[in-house]
């Protein structure tokens, strides 16, 4: 019983970062109509930058975390301006090919720079396990869970209670109509991409602080993000959050009770099952924000 709760807890901690990653991807797809296979590279960049800022520049961990996210967002802004804006009216398949190209480029340039060896981000949190009611966890895990929860809630407030959020939701559900009422949808698209990239980078820096960072970490992350997005229903933000937690928990259980070799595969099986039996996604209706 304790073992089950323990895996559930581990799953939720990882899953909350997955949710962060998937929400960014959902926004970018919903608002920009870009299937962004480069999303995982922002996740990787967040982690890798955080590592170098702490390890090489000896920055304070928390400052490094913030700076890594800010730098990733700046890169997102540059990419959006220079390349993705060209894809405004492109077919979905073109957006996939271009972002895959970007992803391959970013990942391999990073590989040239840092080599394939996984690194660990030094954090101020000790490794001493905390035991509460038979459950074991570490301080960094709690920190990660708290930050992701905070960001997701903050983002929800932004979306529901600010003018910008309203404009984003309008662009999300009816782009042409949004433009007609005077919303600068290009600007909204730019903001969305920067925000989405920032969320991915944060997820990468946080999970990278628990595990390790390496150049190909984004490749598997983006697949997971897509699995979650399809699981939750394309373009459904609450679905992405729920799907992220679900995938985290499912992976936790598989690696806890079956074999960690196959924990990465469970998502693939879930997504195939979802597409077979409930292709619109597990949660809610289509196109909900």
């Amino acid at each position: 019983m304790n073992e089950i709760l323990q895996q559930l807890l581990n799953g939720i901690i990882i899953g909350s970062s997955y949710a962060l990653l998937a929400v960014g991807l959902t926004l970018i797809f919903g608002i920009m109509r870009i299937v962004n296979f480069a999303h995982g590279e922002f996740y990787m960049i967040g982690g890798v930058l955080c590592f170098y800022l702490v390890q090489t520049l000896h920055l304070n961990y928390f400052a490094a975390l913030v700076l890594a996210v800010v730098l990733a967002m700046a890169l997102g802004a540059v990419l959006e301006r220079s390349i993705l804006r060209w894809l405004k009216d492109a077919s979905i398949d073109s957006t996939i090919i271009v972002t895959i190209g970007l992803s391959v480029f970013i990942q391999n340039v990073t590989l040239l720079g840092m080599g394939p060896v996984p690194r660990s981000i030094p954090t101020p949190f000790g490794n001493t396990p905390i035991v509460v009611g038979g459950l074991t966890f570490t301080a960094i895990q709690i920190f990660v869970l708290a930050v992701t929860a905070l960001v997701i809630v903050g983002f929800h407030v932004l979306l529901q209670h600010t003018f910008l959020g309203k404009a984003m939701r309008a662009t999300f559900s009816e782009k042409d109509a949004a433009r007609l009422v005077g919303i600068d949808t290009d600007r909204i698209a730019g903001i969305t991409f920067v925000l989405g990239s920032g969320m991915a980078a944060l997820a990468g820096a946080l999970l990278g602080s628990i595990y390790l960072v390496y150049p190909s970490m984004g490749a598997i992350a983006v697949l997971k993000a897509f699995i979650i997005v399809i699981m939750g229903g394309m373009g459904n933000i609450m679905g992405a959050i729920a799907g992220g937690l679900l995938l985290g928990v499912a992976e936790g259980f598989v690696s806890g009770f079956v074999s960690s070799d196959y924990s990465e595969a469970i998502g693939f099986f879930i997504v195939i099952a979802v597409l077979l039996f409930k292709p619109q996604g597990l949660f809610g209706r289509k196109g909900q924000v």
Partner: protein
Amino acid sequence: MRFTPKRVFLAAVVALAAAAPWLLPNYYLHILTTAGLFILLTSGLNLIHGYIGRLSLGHTAFYGLGGYTAALLSTKLGLGLLLTIPLAALTAAAAGLILGHITLRFRGAQFVLVTLAFAAILHLFANNLVDLTGGPMGLSGVASPLLHKDLETFQVFGSRASFYWLVLALDVATVYVVWRIVHSALGDAMIAIREDEHLAEAIGINEYRYSMLAFVFGAATAGVAGAVYAHYVSFVSPEIFSFSIMIMILVMSILGSVGTVVGPVIGSILVVVLLEALRLQDSLREPIFGIILVAVTLLFPQGLAVLAGRRLFPRQAAPADAGAAPPSAPEAAVGDAAQGGAARPGVPAREPGPAVPPAAGGAARGDVLLDVEHLTVRFGGLLAVDDVSFEVRRGQVVSLIGPNGAGKTTTLNLVTAFIARNAGRIVFDGRECPRQTSPHQVAELGMIRTFQTTRGLLSVPIAKAVATGLHRTLGLGWGRIARAALLGLPDEGQARRALEILRQVGLERDPGELTANLSYGEQRLLEVAIALAARPTLLVLDEPVAGMNMEETVRMMRLIRRLRESGITILLVEHDMKLVMGLSDHIVVLDHGRRIAQGTPAEIQSDPAVIEAYLGRGAANAAA
């Protein structure tokens, strides 16, 4: 077979390629063999991506499956190439069938992700099922005898040249079949699916069947490539499934030109040769591939083969299908003579002359052709169509009218099986249409529809678009499909019939003009022409004059009248009252999903319920 310059050129290229072992040292032969394996992969991928419009990133799954199948059969059972290659193809095709069944209903992100996931899962299994696959170390010692390792006399595949010839032969065979497919009605059907799957289904093209055909063919050729590769390097490891190989295939295919037969060949050779010539470090290769994917997609998405084709043959510049000219007349004549003019079983006899058939023999004007009873559909809590019944009699023009949101188009969607009904009964031409059926099956019965808003076959020349409409009349059972893919079908005057139909609807444009370049009104006419090509017994038109100007409307009205005179029954949804009242024999009025009136135009015009629905209660009182 005639000796056109193109064919002589192709024969010369193949002959030169076959002579390469005497002309080139072994090192170059190895490079060409590698390129040849990639041609197998890219040609198959191209049929999937370029023709049915699905971007598959799981192609290495089939490559790897083929490789492991051959490696296992060879190392565990001692089988040789002649057996392992077909078995690898079968394994990959079976996997393609399963994966296709799951994924082909999707496009875009879902399709990409599941194909990608499939390759990733196989990669994982290849790494972890150590007992079977040897794990990360892979399987080595894959032998290359011809039949079986114990049959000494059959051990031929020792030299590089023998493998080179094997790959060359497989390439020629694959490219030939792809060329046959894309230059036949099968290719037309696939392009129609890529451009507009609803339109394809509406004219009787079985989307599932043709998508599956392309997908399984691609899977099988990739399986063959994997098997040959395993024997060639006598080794296979999980890396065969890796994403970097997929990226390389994608780069070749996109650089070469997606949606052309020659593009993948050019792309494969170019990339392999360039990689050798530049002697790039492996670590630099992938970033460059990334840049190529971005640059080609943004700057010249048509790819090198099409670009070069435009430069070399400026007149044949039609994109995607530069070589799609109809077979030359003498060849067609020979084909017909060989056929002996005998009627083939399963193929409806075709009379020459007018392309539009009279009403089907045996059935008289005035019989009930379409009988709709108690049709009902619910969307969530909304009854979009509520217990609607009506009849369409042979030779009539029946119109469905009603205010916006009355459920007219929904009714058409239900009748043509684009939406499944919740209740009710539909009998067409004496046959009951089941509740769960697909639109192409309804079209197969002779009910052909057009759409209110449609994309159309934008990248297809107009004559070819109309010829695509002929699909249903070609009697393409599995036998004829196999024949079309392997030998080609004799020309049955499709091009001529397409031109006739174009003339008949009054679309006087260059038959080679792309659909995308037509005006809106012309595109609607073309859509009717495509529907007519499918020989409708009942033609279902959804707002054919919506958005048209006066002149175009009059033209369409004349056309509909002529069609009725030629014996086609028409079911029409339209807002233009002048057109409806002028053409209809019978009118059915819907409001809020219910039938509120039916009758002749005169009856409808004076019906108070109709006036109320359109103009409100006050107007109805005034009229009464």
